[in-house]
């Protein structure tokens, strides 16, 4: 049984708080770190969210889908820039993460594309984003909404 947790910070807090029960004693399998997104202008434009997904377990995991109350059609997308400097974006399909490996969703590469927003993305707010894996496991991360001009999670 794989385990999915939000962030390593949470694991540390649980451990520090003496809540480390046998189920949490081993290494966690999927850890989502440094999630962030940009504020939107209104609701007509798609949003994008970024994060690092680490597989700390010893079995491969495959990210197959996303859900969020914020957007009707969340989807993992990949931006590619060809030799002529032309950028395009398309669905990335399933994302397999080998044991010990991580996948970075970052500007210009993979992103969680948030299509058909249900409300504007407002700087300072957060929204829950659930990552669904092929074995039925899921992890929900609370994604902070930064300014439109943000370049990374620390902006």
């Amino acid at each position, binding site marked *: 049984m794989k385990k999915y947790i939000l962030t390593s910070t949470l694991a540390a807090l649980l451990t520090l708080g003496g809540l480390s029960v046998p189920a949490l004693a081993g290494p966690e399998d999927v850890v989502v770190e440094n999630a962030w997104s*940009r504020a939107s*202008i209104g609701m*007509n*434009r*798609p*949003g*994008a969210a970024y994060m690092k997904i680490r597989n700390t377990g010893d079995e491969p995991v495959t990210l197959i889908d996303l859900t969020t109350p914020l957007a*009707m*059609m969340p*989807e993992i*997308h990949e*931006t590619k*820039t060809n*030799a*002529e*400097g*032309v*950028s*395009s*974006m398309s*669905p990335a399909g399933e994302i397999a993460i080998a044991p010990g490996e991580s996948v970075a969703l970052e*500007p*210009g590469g993979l*992103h969680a*594309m*948030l*299509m*058909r927003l249900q409300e504007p993305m407002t700087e300072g707010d957060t929204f829950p984003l659930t990552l669904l894996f092929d074995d039925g496991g899921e992890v929900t991360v609370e994604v902070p909404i930064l*300014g*439109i*001009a*943000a*370049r990374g999670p620390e902006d």
Partner: protein
Amino acid sequence: MRRRAILGYGAAGVGAVALMLFVGWWQVDGPGGAEPVGQRPVALTEMDFRLTDHEGNAVGPETLIGRPTMAFFGFTYCPDVCPTTLSDISGWLDDLGDEADEMNVVFITVDPERDTVETVAEYVGYFHPGIRGWTGPEEQIARVADGFRATYERVPTESGDYTMNHTASVFLFAASGRFVTMIDYHEPREFAVPKIRRALAEEMEGAT
């Protein structure tokens, strides 16, 4: 004999690897990099188009002559590449400080259907105040892209909307309008800012 033949293949293999390395160098860092022959933008003085800036002023290539220019293409419904490029440019302009005031910085939409003057005005307002936003009729945008040797294409999305594939490089022109170089998408800041300074320096040469 058999051993000789293997050695022969080995030598050919080394030659092939050397050739591949050379081709790789040529394309990435060498004279073949970034600006393939025939793909360089023409000088601004040779372009001919009429657009409107985000404050409603009529603009064209002549608007850019006399100061160095940094220009790039995008669209305001772009979730990833365009805000990233605009924030990168804002960061470069911050690094340049007062020098940034001496140049034109222009965001040109490739999606005039959705990017009206008002839309572009709101959008550029979120980034460095030096960035101007230009839009106009589709056939005029096509002329700009042609002069820049840039491309764009409308692509439907699953959500029933559409997105735009487009050239994501940042173009640099000297004050004379001559094309200097371009900054590729995701080029590190330590390369980008010196390139911008190069375009700024050409202005000095032209002035003396």
